[in-house]
């Protein structure tokens, strides 16, 4: 069996990011928060400071390593919430149609009309800053795309022969949705989901920059980027390394999404074997 390059590379990058997050206490050289030392402030990358140090003398390498925890948690959990909401609403709306479809459509349009970041800001303002509110805010505001996709898929799948056959064979509505519709729309949903994880990592950066996300001094890649903004000409390593971490993670997620889509499509599965 020949594995696809995008799946291998994407999976490796994403797995690496997760491993780094999990093994952070062992990988980091110093404590990312406590070990500030103004004597080492703004050191460029060297053998001692792999990624350099920031204005307070904290090791960027260690902060990037620890930042993986927060950034990945936000990316994965908030996108999972989005996917569950989006698929649940979209799938049922497309399958049942009628007034429920109208309600879901109105809700989706509402979500699309309000910029999701502004909406997330409003939720954060109510809940207050912190990781949990960040997860809730990002998890509740980015499902409209998934919802649209799930609804459109359900609409077209509903008329497929096997869905009608399932009805004839006595399947209930819920069983049809779960066994017939969901598996057949999973490919694009997963692809959208991985893309969404990437954008959630970026949204976290934006919210943290506005002081509503993860509170300093705890590191997330986004907040590190935001803090480094002013020194981009004098100390570019402050933004380059967290930026690279975001870039590689998002790239890995996108490649993984592509690879997963190929695997989830049984027709391409047999082509490979």
């Amino acid at each position: 069996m020949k594995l696809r390059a995008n799946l291998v590379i994407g999976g490796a990058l994403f797995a690496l990011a997760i491993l780094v997050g999990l093994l952070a206490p062992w990988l980091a050289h110093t404590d990312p928060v406590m070990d500030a030392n103004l004597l080492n402030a703004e050191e460029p990358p060297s053998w001692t400071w792999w990624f350099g140090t920031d204005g307070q003398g904290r090791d960027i390498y260690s902060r990037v390593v620890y930042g993986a925890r927060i950034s990945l948690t936000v990316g994965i959990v908030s996108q999972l919430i989005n996917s569950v909401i989006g698929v649940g609403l979209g799938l049922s709306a497309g399958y049942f149609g009628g007034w429920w479809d109208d309600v879901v459509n109105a809700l989706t349009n509402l979500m699309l009309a309000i910029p999701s970041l502004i909406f997330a800001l409003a939720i954060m303002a109510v809940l207050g800053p912190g990781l949990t509110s960040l997860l809730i805010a990002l998890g509740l505001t980015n499902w409209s795309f998934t919802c649209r996709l799930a609804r459109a898929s359900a609409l077209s799948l509903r008329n497929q022969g096997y869905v009608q056959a399932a009805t004839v064979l006595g399947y209930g509505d819920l069983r049809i949705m779960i066994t017939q519709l969901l598996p057949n729309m999973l490919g694009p949903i997963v692809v959208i989901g991985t893309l969404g994880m990437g954008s959630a990592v970026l949204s976290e950066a934006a919210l943290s920059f506005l002081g509503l996300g993860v509170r300093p001094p705890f590191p997330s890649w986004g907040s590190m980027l935001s803090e480094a903004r002013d020194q981009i000409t004098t100390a570019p390593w402050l933004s380059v390394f967290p930026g690279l971490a975001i870039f590689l993670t998002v790239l890995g997620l996108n490649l993984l999404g592509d690879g997963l889509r190929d695997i989830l499509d049984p027709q391409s599965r047999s082509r490979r074997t």
Partner: protein
Amino acid sequence: MTGAPLIEVEDLRIDLDDGSRRVAAAEGISFRIDRGETFGLVGESGCGKSITALALIGLLRSPLSIGGGAIRFEGREIQNLSAARQRQLRGNRIAMIFQEPMTALNPVSPVGRQIAEMFVLHKGKSWREANQLAVESLASVRVPAPERRVKDYPHQLSGGMRQRVMIAIALACGPDLLIADEPTTALDVTVQAEIIELMRNLCAERGTAILMISHDLGLVANVCRRVAVMYAGRIVEERSSADIFRAPSHPYTQGLVDSLPRLGSRAALGRSRLKEIAGVVPAITNFPDGCRFNPRCAQATDICRTAAPKTDLLEAGGLVRCHHHA
């Protein structure tokens, strides 16, 4: 319910709501199928045979609806049962196989799982037992190496194999009635014969009645003991298969029988062109007055254009709906 037929349709009317008014897409449909009997419904496209089948399993959807009459399953009216009760019948007591085995199987689910699901759904089996039963089901429809095949996805199977899987799914729960809507139209002729044979044998073994729907009179007569011919939403003739070829009563049936290509004596007698029935089936919204076949009927007289014929009992057995029946 001894004595009662398995399924009895009485004066069924199916309405089509085209927005402004309701028209009858089918009306006066009456027939009965006994336990283990084979019954065929024949007609051109759009004559109402498929919607009759959908009505039987309670799956008419807007703009179609049942406008009157009764459908009795084992003596009990089923057209007004709750959705949940109807669902218990479907797949379990009344099963159906479709024209297109290519699209009637879920592409992302192994076929064994799709068969097993029937046992889980209707018989309350555990997945373990159900998977075992699925292998047996696949063996019973003579799929070679069923232990391996259960793991295959539909696209890995040929058309004939898929239709065998469909039959396995449909017969999994031992239904009392199998509705086969053009079950072999999409298959090669040689495969067709195998599938028909298989379906007939399995149903005969298990005492499952068959309602076969097709436009192919020859095929239906070959499988079924009795045949009803539909035209423009009405049953025009119902006979035993043997009689319908020997002595068709309704002019439309005569036309159908004459239009079948034949080998042997008749072809030798007159090397004439294949006969056809002139004209086309009228649209549902525009059925002619009187007998609906009158514009295409060579024997039509004035009464055919004004009065709809009643259903008459034939001396030789069978029913016909024609003013001038033989």
